C-alpha cells in the first residue's frame, strides 16, 4: 500500500483540530478554576455546619401556648402541631401551585418530644380551634382561661408566649418566677422598665428563657460571622438594612373575624394595663398598629434586622439612636409610623482593619422602612475591603479602594463588580413562597434555612434548641442578654421617633441617659405623639 501526503492529510486532518479544541477547553477551564481557588484560599471562609443539639429524651416536655393567633399557630406547627384547617388549606394550595412545599416540609419535619398540653387564648374561637385540632388520645390538651391559671396548674413545664407585645413581659416574668420555661416572641418587652425586670427574673430563674428570633438558626449567618471575623470585609463603617412591604398583611391589616364579639372575647384581659377603651375589633385583630399594644416598625420589624446583625457582629446596644418617619402610607387610624428611618451609632465598634491602626473605628447601622413599597432592598454591610449582601444567600464583592485586595485588584485577579464569594446553601432547592410577606421574610433568611440542601423551618430549629436546653441544659442562641439588647435598641428607636430627639445609652450604668421632664415609659406607651416640633398623630 502507498499513501500520499494528501491521503494522510485527508485521513488524519481532524486530529490536530481535536487536539487544539481539547487543549483550549482544558486550559480555559483549569485556569478559571485555579484563579477561583486562589481567591477562595486567600479568603479561607468556612461555611457553618448545621446546629447539633443533644436529643430531647425522657418524658415529653409539656408545653402550653399562650396566644393562638397567626403567630401562635405558626409556632405550634414548628412544634409539630398543625390545625385541621391549615392542613386542608395547604392541600388546596398544593393543587394550585405544586411548588408550594409548606405541607411537605411540615410532614417531613422531625418530631419533637413534646406534649402540647394547654392553650390559653381569650378568644373562644381560637382556643376551641386549638382544642379541636390538637386534642387526641395521645395528646390531651386543656384550655386555661388565664395565663396564671396555666402556669400555676403544675401540668405545664414550658410556655410559648405569642400575645400582643404589652403582655410579653408580664407573662414571661410570671412564668420564670414560677420555674416555668419561656419562649417569648419579639420584641421581648413593651417598655424600658419591663426590660430590666424581665432580665432580673430570667437571671434569677432556673427555667430556660429564649426570645423568638429564630433567624439565629440560619446557617448563612454563621458563615457571615466567619467572614467578618476573618477580616474579609475590613472595617465595616455602614450597615444598611430595610423593610419593604406593600400589602395588607405586611401593613398589619389582618382579617377581622366574624366570630369576634364581646361574648367570645375576654376584652378586659386583652387590654390588661393598656388604656381602658370599649370593645374594639379593629384593635383586637390589628393591635400592631397602636402603641398601646404593639411597638410599631421599631419593635416589630427593626428588631428582626437589628438582631440579625447583632447575631453576626455582636455589636450590642447602640450608643445613640435617632429616628424619623410618620404615618405616610396607611392613614387608617393607626398611630405607629409606617415609614421609619432609624440611625444607630456605634462609635467604638470595629470589625477589624486592614489599614494603619486607629484610622478606622465606629459604625452606623441604618434601618430604613416603608410599608408603602415592596421593592426588595437587600441588607448590605459596607466595609473598606468589601461589601456583603446578607440573607439566606451571601454575596461578597471586593471594594475598588480596598487595601487588603489592592494587589489582586491591580493584577486583574479581582474586579469590584464581580463577587469573590457566594454562599447559597439552598442552591439545589428552588423556592416557592405564597405571599408577599412571606417573600419578605424568606429573602432575609428569617423563615427557613437549608441543611444538606433541604429546607428546614428555622423556628423549628429554634424551638428544638430551647427544648433541648430544657432537658439537657446548655445555652440558647437568643437568651436574656441578646433579648435585653434587642429590646433596649428597639425602645431607643421608638422613643427617638416619638420625642424627635437623640436617645443615648450609658454603657457604664447600662441605662438610657435621662432627659429632663421625660418619663420614657409614659412616652413609649402613649398613643399620642409627644413631640411638639412635628406633625401630630393621634
Amino acid at each position, binding site marked *: 500500500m502507498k*499513501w500520499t501526503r494528501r491521503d494522510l492529510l*485527508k485521513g488524519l486532518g*481532524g*486530529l490536530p483540530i*481535536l487536539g487544539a*479544541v481539547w487543549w*483550549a*477547553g*482544558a486550559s*480555559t477551564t483549569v485556569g478559571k478554576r485555579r484563579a477561583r481557588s486562589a481567591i477562595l484560599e486567600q479568603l479561607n471562609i468556612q461555611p457553618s455546619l448545621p446546629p447539633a443539639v443533644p436529643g430531647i429524651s425522657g418524658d415529653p416536655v409539656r408545653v402550653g401556648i399562650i396566644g393562638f393567633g397567626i403567630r401562635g399557630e405558626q409556632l405550634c406547627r414548628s412544634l409539630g402541631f398543625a390545625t385541621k384547617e391549615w392542613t386542608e388549606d395547604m392541600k388546596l394550595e398544593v393543587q394550585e401551585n405544586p411548588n408550594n412545599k409548606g405541607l411537605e416540609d411540615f410532614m417531613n419535619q422531625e418530631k419533637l418530644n413534646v406534649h402540647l398540653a394547654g392553650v390559653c387564648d381569650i378568644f373562644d374561637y381560637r382556643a376551641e380551634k386549638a382544642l379541636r385540632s390538637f386534642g387526641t388520645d395521645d395528646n390531651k390538651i386543656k384550655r386555661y382561661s388565664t395565663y396564671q391559671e396555666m402556669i400555676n396548674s403544675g401540668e405545664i413545664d414550658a410556655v410559648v408566649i405569642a400575645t400582643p407585645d404589652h403582655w410579653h413581659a408580664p407573662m414571661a416574668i410570671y412564668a420564670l418566677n414560677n420555674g416555668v420555661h419561656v419562649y417569648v416572641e419579639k420584641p421581648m418587652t413593651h417598655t424600658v422598665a419591663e426590660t430590666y425586670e424581665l432580665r432580673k427574673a430570667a437571671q434569677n430563674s432556673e427555667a430556660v428563657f429564649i426570645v423568638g428570633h429564630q433567624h439565629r438558626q440560619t446557617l448563612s449567618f454563621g458563615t457571615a460571622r466567619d467572614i467578618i471575623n476573618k477580616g474579609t470585609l475590613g472595617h465595616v463603617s455602614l450597615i444598611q438594612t430595610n423593610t419593604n412591604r406593600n400589602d395588607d398583611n405586611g401593613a398589619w391589616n389582618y382579617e377581622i373575624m366574624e366570630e369576634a364579639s364581646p361574648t367570645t372575647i375576654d376584652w378586659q384581659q386583652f387590654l390588661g394595663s393598656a388604656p381602658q377603651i370599649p370593645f374594639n375589633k379593629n384593635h383586637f385583630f390589628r393591635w400592631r398598629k397602636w402603641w398601646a399594644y404593639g411597638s410599631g416598625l421599631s419593635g416589630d420589624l427593626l428588631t428582626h434586622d437589628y438582631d440579625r446583625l447583632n447575631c453576626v457582629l455582636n455589636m450590642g446596644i447602640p450608643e445613640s439612636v435617632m429616628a424619623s418617619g410618620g404615618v405616610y402610607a396607611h392613614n387608617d387610624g393607626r398611630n405607629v409610623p409606617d415609614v421609619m428611618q432609624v440611625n444607630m451609632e456605634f462609635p467604638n465598634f470595629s470589625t477589624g482593619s486592614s489599614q494603619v491602626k486607629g484610622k478606622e473605628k465606629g459604625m452606623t447601622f441604618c434601618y430604613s422602612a416603608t410599608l408603602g413599597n415592596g421593592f426588595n432592598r437587600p441588607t448590605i454591610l459596607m466595609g473598606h475591603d468589601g461589601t456583603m449582601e446578607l440573607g439566606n444567600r451571601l454575596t461578597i464583592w471586593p471594594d475598588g479602594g480596598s487595601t487588603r485586595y489592592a494587589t489582586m485588584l491591580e493584577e486583574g485577579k479581582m474586579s469590584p463588580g464581580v463577587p469573590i464569594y457566594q454562599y447559597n446553601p439552598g442552591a439545589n432547592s428552588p423556592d416557592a413562597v405564597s405571599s408577599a410577606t412571606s417573600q419578605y421574610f424568606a429573602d432575609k433568611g428569617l423563615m427557613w434555612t437549608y441543611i444538606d440542601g433541604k429546607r428546614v423551618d428555622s423556628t423549628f430549629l429554634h424551638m428544638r434548641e430551647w427544648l433541648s436546653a430544657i432537658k439537657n441544659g446548655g445555652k440558647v442562641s437568643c437568651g436574656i442578654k441578646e433579648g435585653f439588647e434587642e429590646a433596649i435598641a428597639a425602645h431607643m428607636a421608638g422613643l427617638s421617633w416619638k420625642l424627635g430627639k437623640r436617645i443615648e445609652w450609658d454603657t457604664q450604668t447600662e441605662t438610657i441617659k435621662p432627659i429632663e421632664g421625660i418619663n420614657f415609659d409614659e412616652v413609649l406607651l402613649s398613643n399620642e405623639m409627644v413631640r411638639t416640633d412635628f406633625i401630630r398623630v393621634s
Partner: protein
Amino acid sequence: MEKNPKIEISVTILRVLIGWHFLYEGIVKMYNPDWTAFGYLASAQGPFKSIFTAMANESIIGWVDTLNMVALIVVGVTLLLGIFEKVGALVGIGLLGMYYLSHPPFPGLTQLNVEGNYWLVNKNLIEIAALVLLFYFPTGHKFGIKNVRKQNLVSNEMD
C-alpha cells in the same frame, strides 16, 4: 446520490464545526468537577417538564452528568475525526433533542438563559437538522479516518 465536490466540502466543514462545538462543551465539563446539569434540568419547562425534573434527582444526577459529558465528547470526536460519524450524528440528535424539549421555545413559556428571541425554532433545532444531514451525507471517507481505512481496503484488495 450524485456527489458534487462543492457540496461535499461544505458538508465536511459543517461536520467539523459541529464536532468542534460538541467537543468543546464536553471538555469544559470534563475539566470542571463542579459542573452539573442540575440547574438546567430543575428549571425545565414545557410538556416534558416532569421527566427532566426527575432526571435532576439527587440519586441519578451524577450519572446524568457523566453520560451527558461522555456523549458530548463522543459526538465531538466522531465528527471531527470522521469515524463512526453516523453514530455520532445520531447521539448528537438525541442530546440536542433533549435540550430542545427540556427548554422548548414554545409560546407562553418563559425563556431562561437564552440570548436572542425564538418561536418554536431555536439553534438546537437547527443543529438537529444539520446533524440529520450529516447522518445521510457521510464525508468521513473524504476527510477523516475513513479515508485512511478506505485506502487500507483498497491496498488490501491490491495485494
